[in-house]
């Protein structure tokens, strides 16, 4: 990949890595288009930018595509909501300001750090993730889906492309450490916030932060192992990261489009106002359940194989290196476990509160099945989830050329987790249970009022009982908020990076603005004085410079 100069033309080349990420992108684009973005030119520019960035063979084309992507997505966010748009464009330009120098610096640690800063900011790696939960929910569902499922992948692609391929020869073990640290932080913050957010799309965006963190951890482990010559761990890490990218690229857009449908038919996506949607929109409910299973990384779901690989990779990584690194990886494992369980909790909360239980508002009670197009898009994604969930081994074989490209010496052991046999066993047991139940048991079932610990039936004017008597999303998260949130989040449950990074910067900027205003308000005489003092200063500098 050589430096492309403006006016020197742009070069496009597809290798295994590009193809993989284009493959990840394709279904989302189709789904997004089906979800109602078909006629928005900006959307297609957005897609074009991502494609260009992925297919670029020279740095200039890459940057161009990347920026095109940022600009278009900014417009789309802007249409949705003004406020996050500014924050978003700020981060986008920041990442550009980091990437542009990085790709033209000589290969080395500084270049890598700049890449991680720039692309990481775009991917939503902690501590630069604060914009993501604000910006991703803003635009229409189809775009949110593509931003969450595709755009962050493009950013990660940049990290992979540079960390493993372009800067590969210069790689140091601690580069991996940087990625792992950032990833771990994102996992924790993302999962925790996903567990606590009460706004459906925001919560999904937080879970995106978590999954980006997982991918980054996998990449970091692989990078470190590659630099240390640990073939097995490198292979595992890459497998985990890439598989996670594939899976997340399927179920996250699905969930976002679903959220859009919820918004469309209920009018709100605040979990505390939903409830019992599975009865009103069964198809959407099932599709969302599939997505939630992926998001929770449960076995037989699309998300489990990557998590499985990642944990193994982390265990392998903990077996190498100095004691500090090993202790670090031990902590990482604890943290990954925490994150995984939090993700399960978040998914359960999302589905259980929004789709199960009783409607909390009349709108939720009056919800109707979503439109055809989005449902078809979701069904497509869900259908693609099935092979990922049940045949991860085949997928890994398909990934092997990419892994060979990234880490030629990496070993690629077959996956020890085999969903199909597990499903088979489950099937056997199910058959057995069914036999017993239908041989000796009583068939059928009766609809009765819920027992509810013996409380009375709700009065007729409250058809679904008093909404206040069922746990809200906030209530569901409350125990975890008390046990962990207090320690990890800033006071008031704000995101730590927002409170400790964004706010101080804003204050600094304000100070600069105040100074500028004071200068602007200067009178003519004072402006003359500016010129005069500057002149004298320059002359002094001149005199001293020549004197000494």
């Amino acid at each position: 990949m050589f430096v492309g100069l403006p006016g020197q033309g742009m070069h496009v080349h597809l290798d295994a890595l590009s193809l993989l990420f284009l493959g990840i992108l394709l279904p989302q684009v189709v789904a997004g288009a089906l979800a109602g973005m078909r006629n928005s030119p900006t959307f297609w520019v957005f897609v074009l930018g991502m494609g260009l960035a992925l297919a670029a063979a020279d740095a200039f084309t890459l940057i161009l595509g990347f920026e095109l992507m940022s600009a278009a997505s900014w417009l789309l966010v802007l249409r949705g909501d003004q406020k996050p748009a500014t924050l978003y464009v700020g981060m986008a330009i920041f990442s550009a300001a980091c990437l542009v120098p990085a790709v033209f610096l000589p290969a080395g640690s500084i270049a890598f750090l700049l890449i991680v800063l720039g692309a990481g900011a775009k991917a939503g790696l902690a501590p630069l993730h604060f914009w993501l939960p604000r910006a991703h929910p803003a635009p229409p569902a189809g775009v949110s889906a593509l931003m969450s499922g595709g755009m962050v992948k493009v950013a990660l692609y940049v990290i992979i492309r540079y960390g493993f391929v372009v800067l590969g020869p210069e790689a140091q073990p601690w580069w991996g450490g940087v990625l792992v640290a950032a990833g771990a932080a994102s996992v924790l913050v993302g999962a925790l916030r996903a567990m606590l957010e009460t706004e459906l799309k925001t919560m999904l965006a937080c879970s995106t932060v978590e999954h980006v963190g997982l991918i980054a951890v996998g990449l970091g482990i692989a990078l470190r192992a590659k630099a240390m010559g640990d073939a097995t761990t490198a292979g595992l890490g890459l497998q985990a990261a890439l598989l996670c990218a594939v899976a997340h690229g399927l179920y996250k857009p699905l969930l976002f489009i679903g959220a859009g449908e919820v918004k469309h038919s209920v009018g709100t996506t605040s979990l505390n106002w939903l409830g019992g949607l599975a009865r009103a929109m069964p198809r959407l409910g099932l599709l969302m359940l599939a997505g939630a299973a992926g998001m929770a990384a449960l076995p037989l779901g699309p998300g489990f194989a990557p998590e499985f690989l990642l944990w193994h990779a982390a265990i392998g990584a903990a077996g190498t290196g100095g004691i500090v690194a090993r202790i670090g990886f031990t902590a990482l494992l604890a943290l990954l476990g925490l994150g995984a369980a939090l993700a399960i909790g978040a998914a359960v909360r999302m589905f259980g509160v929004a789709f199960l239980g009783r409607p909390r508002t009349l709108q939720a009670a009056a919800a109707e099945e979503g439109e055809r197009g989005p449902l078809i898009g979701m069904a497509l994604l869900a259908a693609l989830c099935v092979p990922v969930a049940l045949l991860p081994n085949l997928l890994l074989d398909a990934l092997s050329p990419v892994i060979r490209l990234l880490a030629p010496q990496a070993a690629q052991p077959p996956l020890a987790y085999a969903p199909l046999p597990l499903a088979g066993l489950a099937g056997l047991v199910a058959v057995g249970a069914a036999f017993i139940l239908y041989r000796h048991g009583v068939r059928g079932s009766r609809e009765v009022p819920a027992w509810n610990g013996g409380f009375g039936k709700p009065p007729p004017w409250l058809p679904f009982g008093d909404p206040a008597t069922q746990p809200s999303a906030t209530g569901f998260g409350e125990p975890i908020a008390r046990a962990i949130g207090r320690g990890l989040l800033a006071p008031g449950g704000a995101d730590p990076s927002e409170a400790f990074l964004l706010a101080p910067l804003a204050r600094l900027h304000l100070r600069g603005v105040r100074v500028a205003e004071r200068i602007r308000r200067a009178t003519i005489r004072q402006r003359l004085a500016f010129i005069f003092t500057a002149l004298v200063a320059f002359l002094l500098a001149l005199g001293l410079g020549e004197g000494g």
Partner: protein
Amino acid sequence: MLLNFLLRLIATMLHVGLTFALAPLVMGVVTTLRAWVLGRRGPPVVQPYRDLYKLLRKSTLVPETASQLFSAWPLACALSIAVAAMLVPGFCTGLLTAPLSDFVTIMGLLALARAATMLGGLETGFGFGGAGAAREALYGVFAEGALLVVLLGFGLLAHGVTVDGIAVAFDTQHIGISVSLGFALAAMLAVALTETGRIPTDNPAGHLELAMVHEAMLLEYSGRNLLLLNYAAMLRLLLWMSLIGSIFLPFGMARATDILSWPGGLVLWLVKLAAMSAVLPVFEVSSAKMRVFRVPEFLGVAMLLGMLAAIFLFVAARIGA
């Protein structure tokens, strides 16, 4: 070759059959012993079988506010626990399911069961189920973390993380009694108590809804659904017992390929189960149930113990900075 396969097949079926058959019995023994320790007479040990049969014969009620998935959750829960129970070696190693018995897979299956139960609790949208589910989520967070760290310790010692492999390794190569194993055991016990919903984190016999965690999620279930959920709970108890047994007391486990070692293995397995089901009630009785928000601290300690175990291993292996 074929013979080996046949033997392993038989052993596997035997293991599965025994596990499924013995699960209620273990539960019964624990309950009865507990009553004895408390100085009551207690139900006969076969009571669980009767309860299950009674539930089988009872009709199934579905609340009006429930969705179509109401009956899916108990099934999912029971199935995943059952599969997990098939994977964990009992009386002998080298079962057909051994290659599947990756510790992570088992954790995943347990998590799946937990998720299904939580969804079941949220299904009807009444207070108790929700509260129970929320607490279950809280416990799960810490339990998984602790378990994963402990797993690291095993992985480092046994150079593999399939339960079968760990069992074989700990059985054949004499690790000896190391500090880290002690820590790991403590951590694992804590997690096991939480997962199986025993005192001190939850009270299986308690019927005060506000204090219940696991039971609270089953409140709305009846008939075959309740049967599945209860049976899943029994299986889970047995599963954890044989898991701890095969990892920490692996001695005398039979090998599936040599039939002569089976009897000894079987006997020892039963003895281990009996011992554990004897220790559990004693511990339960001697300790009080904690408040919900003490549990995270309890499990946090477990997590730290797990990390300590790993760190001690590093120190023992004399790894420089």
